[in-house]
């Protein structure tokens, strides 16, 4: 199915990316729980 790509969908994606980064930084500092990270749909990877 061909995806519909709109300015709004990209802004949403970029906004989420920036917000995710802040959440992860807070998690790494011990100020946010792993549950919060998971609830926000942030997926950690093990690419090494």
């Amino acid at each position: 199915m061909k995806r519909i790509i709109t300015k709004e969908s990209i802004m949403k994606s970029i906004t989420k990316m920036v917000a995710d980064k802040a959440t992860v930084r807070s998690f790494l500092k011990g100020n946010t729980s792993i549950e919060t990270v998971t609830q926000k749909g942030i997926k950690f990877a093990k690419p090494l």
Partner: protein
Amino acid sequence: MPNLYNYTFNEVTGTYNFTTKNDIEYKVVFIIDETLDSVSENPIENVYQVIIEKVSDAIEPLDSAVGRTIDDIIKSFFENAQNSLIYICSENEEKAEIRFNVFDRWYLNSTFNEFVTKIDNVINCEANGEVYLLYTSLLYHNDNPNIEYVLTAYNSIEEVLNSK
């Protein structure tokens, strides 16, 4: 590579961790990024953000081994040629431009810049009546077999954002 800190992967937190000789702890995490996937008509995988955080509050004395350790982690990341790193920083974030320039210097001084390419794009866009300045970079392996899709998606971010 001499003078590196050993790093380990913590399966519980999903982070790569190391501690310096000054007892300062660093954590490095890769998160799956779907920004390029969201602007592509073809599924795009293996795109990540990397987040590096000095966890300890203590002020860090100059320690070049920290940079070399992070360099080594990123170099290992690109052992899989299909991996790409995307960096997007909005001007709303604290020190966005400074971070962007630090990221650039770090790449230029890295040991992997011979086989990893970095491209930058600073995007001015307007959404919901507000003007945004986005600092973006993409790092990809020169042998990435999917680079055509990845670059098309990356370049289309600005194109779509500035469309009417």
